């Protein structure tokens, strides 16, 4: 079921926020930026996978 992805994204977001706060408190804000970037890329990869699945389904369905 694709609804798992929503909770996965939420979990990644909360985890990223916590890591970000810890790293910022430890004066490692440049690493915090990298962590945020990698988290966004991971989520983007999951969402793009789902979008490509949708587009191939729509292509097959409507004969585009």
């Amino acid at each position: 079921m694709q609804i798992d992805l929503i909770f996965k994204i939420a979990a990644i977001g909360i985890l990223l926020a916590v890591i970000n706060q810890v790293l910022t408190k430890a004066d490692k804000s440049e690493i915090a930026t990298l962590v945020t970037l990698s988290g966004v890329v991971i989520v983007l990869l999951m969402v793009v996978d789902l979008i490509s699945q949708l587009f191939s389904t729509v292509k097959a369905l409507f004969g585009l």
Partner: protein
Amino acid sequence: MSKYPLGIGTVAALAIVACIVILLLKEAKPELAPMVSVAFGVAVLLWLVTPIKDVITTLISIANKTGISNELIDPMLKVAGIALVAEFAASVCNDCGQGSLASRVETAGKVVILSISIPIIMGLLDTVLSVVP
């Protein structure tokens, strides 16, 4: 209703859950909030595939029974698919706060739909011109 994966009640409840998740993420990580809405939109559209397939099969069988040619049904289905994809992309752009991108996508969708429906319009014109002396 039961032969489809999800009813309207489930979709509505999951939409409310997604809304709350988005609210939560907007505070923690604002850049991930549009991702949740995109994921939910794609998930809903993927659940709708089975009903859409049923409707299309019915439409094609009606067309076959009434003798409407496939050259008229195929463009219609294509227009429906393009409208679905373009509307989805435009609403995602709107969610990300890019209204101008959304309207560009809508314009592109309209132009593609127009170019697909030109043969039908020309066919109608030919029919009208052959009736009118």
